[in-house]
């Protein structure tokens, strides 16, 4: 989709404008960047860009959640995290300035849900905390601290006490954190 011609057709552009939170300039910019990524891709031409190439973007390069982001937004049947242009727009739209808190928190939930089972359980939380603090020994939490932290998080956010944090509970926590909208942003 979209990569073959260097320019986006006008009707497609307006359709994208209607369906995403992006402005015209942002879509054109995204298109340019995506075409460059496609050109850099070695091997036969395809409408998708592999995850490795997407992750060379400076905006994603050092993000600890980069692989999860690709997996969440990819619609590939191979589950390899490769992105088509529309997936790429989806990604940018969710991370854009004008996206609503709801859509941002939805995608944040999916990014943090490492095993894709629809809830954040203790293992997801552990992975999340490890991605946040990094894997080096001096920043990493000890096992005891981790256990404490996870039980505290569950205590605070698991309203129905089923031992996991589901989407609504997650959104409830997020809605109390006004900084989330401004920090869950990627600007091209």
């Amino acid at each position, binding site marked *: 989709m979209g990569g073959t011609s260097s320019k986006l057709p006008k009707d497609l552009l307006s359709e994208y404008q209607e*369906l995403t939170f992006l402005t015209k300039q*942002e879509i054109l910019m995204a298109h340019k960047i995506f075409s460059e990524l496609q050109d850099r891709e070695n091997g036969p031409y395809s409408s998708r860009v592999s995850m490795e190439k997407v992750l060379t973007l400076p905006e994603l390069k050092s993000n600890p959640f980069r692989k999860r982001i690709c997996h969440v937004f990819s*619609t590939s049947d191979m589950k390899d995290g490769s992105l088509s242009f529309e997936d790429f727009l989806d990604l940018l739209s969710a991370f854009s300035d004008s996206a609503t808190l709801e859509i941002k928190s939805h995608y944040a939930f999916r990014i943090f849900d490492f095993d894709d089972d629809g809830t954040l359980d203790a293992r997801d939380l552990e992975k999340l905390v490890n991605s946040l*603090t990094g894997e080096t020994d001096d920043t990493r939490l000890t096992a005891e601290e981790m256990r404490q932290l996870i039980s505290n998080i569950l205590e*605070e956010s698991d*309203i129905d006490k089923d031992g996991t944090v589901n989407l609504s509970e997650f959104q409830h926590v997020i809605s109390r954190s006004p900084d989330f909208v401004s920090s869950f942003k990627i600007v091209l």
Partner: protein
Amino acid sequence: MDGRVSFDADPVIDFESPADEDGVHDSFSQLIQEQCHDLHDVIEMTPLDLEEDSRGQITPQPILARNRPLRQEVTSDSSLTDLCVSDDVECLEADSDAPQQTDHLIGERWSSDTLKVLSSMPSRTIGRSRGAIISQYCNRTMQLRRRRQSRPSIQHFPRSARPSIRGYGVETDAAGFEEEENKRDRLVNNLQNLSDSDRVRMLRAMPLSLSEKKELRMLVLNKAEHSVSQNQIPCCSQLKYYIIIALRHGWYGWLSFLSSLQLWQTALKCVGGRFGTGVLSYFIFLRTLLFFNVFLFLVTGLLLVVPQAITHPDQDQNITVRSSWGLEVLTGAGYFSHSLLYYGYYNNQTLQTGHSCSASGNGTSCSSGLSYNMPLVYFFTIGAAFFITCIILVYSMSKSFGQSFRIDKSKGLLAIKVFSSWDFKVIKKSSVRLQRANIGTQLKELVAEVNRQEQKFPVLQRLFRLFIHMLAWIMCLGSTLACVLAVYYFSEHMHGDLRNRTQAASSDPLLKEASLLAVPVVVSSINLLLPGFFNVVAWMEKYDSPSMLNYISISRNLLLKVSVLGVLCYHWLGRVATDPQSLGLECWESFVGQELYRFLLMDFIFMLLDTFFGEFLWRVFSQKALKRKRKPVFDIARNVLELIYGQTLAWLGVLFSPLLPAVQIIKLLFLFYMKKVSLKMNCQASGKPWRACQMTTIFITLLCFPAFLGATVCVTYTMWSITPSAGCGPFRGLKNMFQAGKRWVHRLAAVNPDLHWLASAHSYLVENPLFLFLCAGIFLIMIYFHSQVVDGQRKIIELLQEQIENEGEDKKFLITRLQHIHERKRRVTPRPVKGASEACSYS
């Protein structure tokens, strides 16, 4: 939420004997039976609802075909079993009839059937499945439609597309697929019945992939087209349709034009990427101030400066341009004192058609009967500018309050920290590392804090701490008081000095001008040095929490700035304005304008010096001499307070010097680039947590409350009760500036007797304080009602939370029972209840 009963560690039903267990079991299945009966009754009454509802159920399986691998326990078994409380109890038995197949999964300790039930619960499927999302939005579109009542609903849909307890039955893949198609149809139908803007908003906010949204949109549009062609709409509504489309395109174009105007987009991105949201908030605040000033400049420029510049008054002929040009730029006196920069230059004539037309040659003012009453315009321009600024400020303040302080104040510090502390904007490698280290230490500290039980200091130590805090406050307040007194007496001294010089008349004019700069220099150096002193004091105090430290430092700095400004206002409005003759001033307003110009400029110069010495040289010194690796940290709070101080000066001065906003604009532009460069060179990202959103709220509040309100009070006081100078300015010959309006109204009434009511209305409304009191009273009552509503909402939230907790208990109870039934049926090695339920939290 204190009395949390954890799902995992707590045996809910503590039965020991099998007999007892049987009893409980029996009662449970009885309950289920009863429920089924009840439900059947309900279902029989509303067959349509049932049909619709069973379509609306959640189907986790096919959805996952997209790209999410379900957890193995679920995918391994193709036929999903749902919680079958609803229609048939047989399902329970059917499930447990095949224990052998699932036995290998019991490694999880929690039986696979239970796991399946758990993972297909609606609360868990919303987060991952497309079908659930679609039905959720289907529901929402329904609600929206009902709320808008734009068109009558065509079909009857179930009350809730969100799965209710009735909606559960066994289902197969194929059925699931059909379900989804059905749901999508319904969603398309709903969307089609929405208005255009609602539809766009809805589609945009759906967390589906773009291709799916495209498909939905196409379906909606196709249907719409179809129905349109059936109805054969008349040409006029077709025209309407085209106009709407054109308007929408225009609106999109306008929006994208606006967003392309986003000032400093890349620069801000760069700053945010390196230093995070905290420092970014300083620059965004700076940009906000810039927009305020641009607005102020446009208003005063277009309405005051341009008309005045067009009609050359004859008073500027006796200006002698002196040589000390450099000093004049600093003091704003000399050549500038008779220019458009200051109040005194503006005249009090009504720029009539007729004679001013020939002088200016301006076509627009020549058009018949147009008169430009300068005093009136001056008065109303300043008033309107302040009024609009006030509205914008209050609006943004309330919006920001709503965002940052939610009514639900339950604590959830750790969860918030973990879920929303990552700043996705940060892209620089070293900053990412720093951010990780920060979050790591913060989490460790928070966990330690949770563990630590109310650490009790011995009495002596507590007394000592109290003493230190007292001492610190006394030192800060004392130094502030000393500075204020110093400014007071120094300004008095300089005032007397200036008077002597004017009377002596023989002294060097250059020296006289230079002496004007003394007070601004002293005030600016106080503003520069005292915050450093406060920082030292705060360092001595050793506050535990960084946010406390921030608030205390902000309040001390604010106190200093407000009291210094208060003394200065007294100096200008009390000393200079009441007795301008002693200074030999023809126009005290211009003099005050010059003073404000000087203060603004000095503030800027000291900021430059501070950036150079405080940031650049300090960095060089600490890196070269002290051999420290770390760079200094950008002090956001102090810098923002300095911006607020400068803006207060600009607001104060706009009455006396209509072009002061332009000076402020130039200053802010310079400051932006200078701070950006200095930040990149000299500073590193802060290690302290910075609650950007709450801090932004506080800064906007400070900008509104002491800064803007103070400036407004001063300006209003000047307009209301100080006699303007008789020899210059648009208000010459009036008792106060306020009379300009009154005089105009009376003149209007005299010319046109029909407008007599206007004069009386004016005198009643504006001059009578009762009206003002009434307004304030209504305002207070509104605030009171609002707070009551918020209070009520808080109570409802508490109740709902309690109810959710109860539901959680119910769920836990049901799941535990389910597990029991499985285990009893299976009759494999019995497991202790406790061990089995422990695993639940990890499922």
